[in-house]
């Protein structure tokens, strides 16, 4: 609460008082009252006016100062009422009570939405588990009756599976609950699973899968990492197709305090103008438009998951030459000590 602004706000009071003083002055002059009386009345006027202005200012100042100051201080502004005392002047009480009611309904609403979100997430998780049963049956059926199903079925099933997984991890990482378990993970095992999952696609498109120096342990959630890498490899395959002697290379680099996992492909790359946006939600860019079937969600989810797990993910590319995605895992010294 600024004094100058407060005065400005109460300017009308001052004007009225000044006017009434001027009128009084005129009356006093008309009756030819002594000069001393005029002056002392003037002093009384000044004192009354300033007191009438300053006392309410002082009463209100503390409350408003705390209110505005604390709002800036705490990160959840709607909880500010918890940090201030109920004021002892009428306006303040009105404001306080109103804020209290607004707050209450706001919190109730938030809780309701949180609850709904949680229910929705639970339903999604359950639904995904349910949908995996027919997916598994279909996979088994298409394998057992190869004469009735051609390779296309298998491919479409894999796509379906990928989209289902995307929803699952989207639901998991958008949720505030901790849904992962960080432990020492054998990177080689994760790469193996990724390789097997994408084997058909890689072989069919004649993309060489080169893996180097991955016999190393990192601190992560293996399932989450597998999904993240899956999204990256999916993109690599999509944008490396139809390129001569194409490859996807996975290798690590170990430094004193971190391990970097690199996924490099010699695909069509990403235009510099698109590069800063690839991790944005629903961003498809030029490549996405050209190659269709892009939801623009894969890398977005991968990035949010990396953030949750505490890894950094970066992307580098030269158009028509290469794309390099790097994930950095921190090394935990305390963990080594505990071992």
């Amino acid at each position, binding site marked *: 609460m600024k004094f100058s602004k407060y005065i400005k706000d109460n300017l009308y009071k001052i004007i009225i008082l000044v006017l009434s003083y001027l009128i009084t002055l005129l009356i006093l002059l008309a009756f030819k009252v002594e000069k001393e009386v005029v002056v002392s009345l003037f002093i009384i006027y000044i004192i009354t006016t300033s007191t009438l202005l300053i006392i309410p200012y002082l009463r209100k100042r503390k409350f408003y100062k705390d209110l505005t100051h604390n709002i800036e201080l705490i990160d959840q502004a709607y909880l500010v009422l918890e940090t201030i005392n109920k004021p002892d002047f009428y306006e303040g009480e009105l404001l306080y009570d109103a804020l209290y009611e607004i707050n209450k309904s706001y919190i109730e609403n938030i809780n309701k939405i949180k609850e709904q979100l949680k229910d929705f997430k639970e339903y999604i998780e359950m639904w995904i588990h*349910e949908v995996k049963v027919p997916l598994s049956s279909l996979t*088994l059926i298409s394998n057992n009756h190869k004469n009735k199903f051609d390779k296309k079925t298998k491919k479409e099933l894999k796509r379906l599976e990928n989209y289902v997984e995307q929803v699952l991890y989207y639901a998991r990482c958008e949720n505030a609950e901790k849904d992962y378990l960080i432990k020492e993970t054998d990177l080689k095992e994760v790469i193996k699973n990724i390789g*097997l999952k994408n084997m058909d696609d890689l072989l069919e498109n004649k993309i060489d899968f080169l893996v180097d120096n991955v016999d190393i342990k990192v601190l992560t*959630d293996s399932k989450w990492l597998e999904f993240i890498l899956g999204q990256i490899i999916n993109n690599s395959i999509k944008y490396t197709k139809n390129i001569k002697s194409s490859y996807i290379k996975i290798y690590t680099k170990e430094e004193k305090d971190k391990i970097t996992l690199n996924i490099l492909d010699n695909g069509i790359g990403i235009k510099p103008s698109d590069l800063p946006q690839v991790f944005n939600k629903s961003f498809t860019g030029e490549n996405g438009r050209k190659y269709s079937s892009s939801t623009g969600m894969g890398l977005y989810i991968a990035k949010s998951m990396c953030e949750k797990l505490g890894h950094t993910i970066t992307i580098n590319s030269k158009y028509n030459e290469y794309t390099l995605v790097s994930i950095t895992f921190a090394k935990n010294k305390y963990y080594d000590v505990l071992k």
Partner: protein
Amino acid sequence: MQKILIIEDDEIIKEELSTLLKNNNYVVEILEDFKNAIEKIKEISPNLILLDISIPYINGKSLLKELRKISNTPVIMVTSSNNETDEALSISYGADDYITKPYNPNILLLRIGAVLKRTNINSNILFYKDLKINISKGIVSKENEEIILTKNEMIIFSNLLNHQNKIVTRDELMTDLWNNLEFINDNALTVNISRLRTKLKSLGYDNIIETRKKVGYILS
């Protein structure tokens, strides 16, 4: 022949899974009565159990816990929940492996093979006619002759040996190789097979690996 018990409540999966396993020379039993699961398992006494986590009456994890009190039968947990906590729990309850639905059938077969191999110590040495094959050393020997196979050649040869007189598809061989972190391409597979043939020929076994066009290979 090895006996595998399927514990699973989805009818179609049960049926297709048992077809898959039977096609791969396993004897298959299916648990129908979940209420007295432990009793039934004792009665059937399988070599390996494929246990789904979400089965009625008794949760897969509790069943595993109960089972571990009385038996060491290898168990592969099957689940549709792709979750690290579940996996860690299952392993701590004594599961030998953990696989998530929907699984690639070839990979499931490899995992089953691996778990059975782990529990069967003698499988490191295989025999074919008068050849002795030491898988971990990569040596194939005959009386006083011996040849050394590369890792890839050994993976291919032992896969064919384990499926003798049965066609093994290129896809199956490829899966086995990739499962062993040998991410080779189609050409390399062809090259490896022809090298393997040449090496076997030097031991006097010419043309034991036949090509079945567009299907795969067979070791006769």
